[in-house]
């Protein structure tokens, strides 16, 4: 018998951090989609940021662990593909958290073709704020990031790719 409501379960889950970028939670990221109570089972829908994101396994395990500790034994985590995850789902608050963590946040409106193709103009350095920055590599330390360099403070930084 599940005594908690869907909202209470969502609140429990909303503290789970992203395993790669621990300053933002899976709710901030938009990875956590839906929670349903079906009989004695809690079903949780999550959506991957990228097809090959290795964090999805860790996120699944974290969800099961958090709910088990809250006394919910039967948990079914499902990966869903629609609607397709987009960086637009990141809240303003999450963007600011990313910036403070040293990751340049994605631009908004990823439907803009230029943004999809990575033609980002004036990407600000998360350390010094300068827009004199350059792309080092389209692929950074994880699938969701690209590597940049600031030509003012000379620090390298990650940019959360815009998709």
């Amino acid at each position: 018998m599940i005594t908690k409501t869907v909202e209470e379960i969502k609140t429990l889950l909303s503290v789970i951090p992203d395993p790669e970028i621990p300053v933002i939670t899976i709710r901030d990221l938009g990875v956590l989609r839906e929670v349903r109570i079906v009989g004695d089972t809690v079903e949780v829908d999550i959506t991957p940021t990228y097809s090959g994101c290795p964090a999805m396994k860790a996120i699944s395990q974290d969800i099961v662990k958090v709910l088990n500790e809250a006394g919910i034994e039967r948990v079914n985590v499902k990966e869903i593909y629609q609607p397709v995850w987009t960086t637009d789902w990141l809240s303003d608050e999450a963007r600011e958290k990313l910036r403070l963590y040293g990751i340049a946040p994605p631009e908004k409106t990823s439907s803009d073709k230029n943004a999809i193709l990575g033609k980002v103009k004036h990407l600000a350095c998360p350390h010094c704020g300068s827009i004199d920055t350059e792309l080092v590599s389209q692929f950074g330390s994880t699938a969701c990031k690209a590597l940049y360099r600031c030509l003012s403070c000379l620090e390298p930084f990650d940019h959360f790719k815009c998709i």
Partner: protein
Amino acid sequence: MNKQETLFNYILRIADSQLILGHRLSEWTGHGPMLEEELASANTALDLIGQANSLYAYATQVEGKGRTEDDLAYLRSEREFFNHLLSEQPRGDFGFSMLRQMLCDAFDVLFYSALMKSSDNTLSGIAAKAYKESQYHLRHSSSWTERLGDGTEESHQRMQNSLNELWRFTDDLFAMRAADLELVNTGIAVDTSSFREAWFKQVSEVLERATLTIPTHAFMQKGSLEGRHTEHLGYLLAEMQSLHRAIPGVKW
């Protein structure tokens, strides 16, 4: 073959191609020309293997025989794989890998863009995600194709040799089973002939900027749809599947 088997085989064709290409790219890990390109190859490989994983998961549902994604990837033999011949070719030098990648990425962008409109919700969802990723991959592989093709005399010659070697496998990308046409008619599958011209145009433009010449007398190789592969796939599978063969039922 009933409709369920046809769909199962159709999904395998897409999944196998992405898995094998992803495996080939992952071979660059530890061998890349520079750190950034190691990351790029590994990241792209992750996307492709991730796509394969989602597709295999769906294939096991369609099949309904209790097999898992791992069973499909690790416990089938060469003749049961339907991947594009292009994807299984050995990685060659870095330019060879980037050129092959560009040919495959250009195909993927157009293929997924069409599959996004599939009447099958799972396939269209996977395709929508993969489409975004493929655009990103294509941008990377095209830029290397251009840079190395239009680079030094040495890099140009190597890229031209790579193109001469790879071009004969490009017809096979578009091969379709007669049974798949039924899936096309019901709006589930994509008719590859519908975007073949667009693919050729796009690839030609990149190759032109790379100052490379498409071979005109290539003898087109086929057979992947019947599980007939070049000799290289067997060796790839022997390596990729060795752990699962040695320790049956192993799980991460």
